């Protein structure tokens, strides 16, 4: 197995574990969307290997883990990953703060899509705290970026970036 593939699979699994880990009630609204963040990193780093199709499969897994309608998170994730994929060269050269701002907008977009489907289904979340997860996600982005980049450089040394 390609070291890049192995590392990306492992980190996505870790992101899933973080996203299902029990948290106290007050903290749940602030939990960043780990899976989306990690996937965004991998699309930026390896756009030739990881793209919208993988994002869709990961999104379906997210739907199952959230007990949501099948396709709800998948739809949001595919659109976010499409944007990242088409802009990955610009994103790579941006500073971490600029990246975090773009990521914030992208996470908001995904949440808006998920919210839109929940609204159609008749059970939208009842508080504005819903969008806090995008903010914490953006705040966590620099760390995620640096940790994953270092991991990749350490274990997958053959890459070009």
């Amino acid at each position, binding site marked *: 197995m390609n070291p890049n593939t192995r590392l990306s699979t492992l980190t996505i699994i870790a992101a899933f574990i973080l996203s299902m880990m029990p948290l106290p009630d007050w903290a749940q*609204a602030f939990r960043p969307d780990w899976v989306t963040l990690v996937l965004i990193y991998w699309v930026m780093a390896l756009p030739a290997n990881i793209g919208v199709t993988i994002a869709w499969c990961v999104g379906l897994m997210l739907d199952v883990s959230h007990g949501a309608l*099948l396709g709800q998170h998948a739809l949001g994730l595919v659109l976010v990953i499409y944007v990242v994929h088409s802009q990955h060269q610009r994103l790579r050269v941006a500073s971490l703060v600029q990246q975090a701002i773009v990521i914030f907008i992208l996470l908001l977009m995904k949440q808006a899509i998920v919210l839109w489907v929940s609204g159609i289904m008749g059970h939208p979340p009842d508080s504005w705290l819903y969008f806090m997860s995008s903010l914490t996600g953006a705040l966590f982005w620099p760390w995620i970026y640096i940790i994953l980049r270092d991991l990749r450089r350490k274990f997958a040394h053959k890459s070009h970036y």
Partner: protein
Amino acid sequence: MQSLFLQGPSVIFRTVILVIASIGLMTLDHRSGQMEIVRNTLSYVLYPLQYTIDLPIRLYHWTDETLSTHETLLSENSRLEDLYLENRVRLQKLDILEKENTRLRKLLRATPKIGEQVLIAEIINVDVDPYRQLTVINKGSNDKVYISQPIIDAQGVIGQTIHVSATSSTVMLITDASHALPVQIDRTSLRAVAFGTGKIDYLDLRHIPHNADIREGDTLITSGLGGRFPANYPVAVITSIERSPDEAFVTVTAEPLALLDRSREVLLVWHNQPQIKGDVDEP
């Protein structure tokens, strides 16, 4: 070697296809139950992760049990023995009542009640979705769990299964915003529907007329209407009643009796399904 150019169909084409696929999947999942197969297959991948997350908590309970002292065990044992005796006495009475009930029903030529079977399941400690009242249990279709099967605990009704995979099921609690449970008031047999609110600690009773005989502290039990839940299980206690003259109905809120966020062990109930007799533990 990494190729310089992307192969296969273009990214925008793939995105459009996947967006259409997502919308199609959502529609199918919402309208029909056929997508459960996809969900079950994906659950197989997810279950080890959920199990891993739950493991530290399981380990904590296990060490707690293994390392408890002799005295604690003895005192717990004697307490449980007392409880057992108490419950035995109650059950004896209940047995006689049940026999009498069947006899009277026979006299009336009414259909006798079918017994209910239960199975203990454990809640897996994973967060599902903070904006919905869902939880995961460790029993699935391998244990003949079915979709919309009622779940109770020692205090009252917890909810029903909404997705069932081979080894685990997702349970929608009665407090989920899209859950409605047909209930009746124990004291007066007044029927109502208890709607979930999305908050773990209260239910809404809608469409109760102003002249209804309803008081704070009344117990709500399942009415068995709708056929999903067996009748006469406790559900909630009415905590507040607001009668304002400009509203068409009374605003009634009730607090669930079941320990929705604290139970570790829950009971799956089979009712009106005599054909599975023998496969499940008798209560």
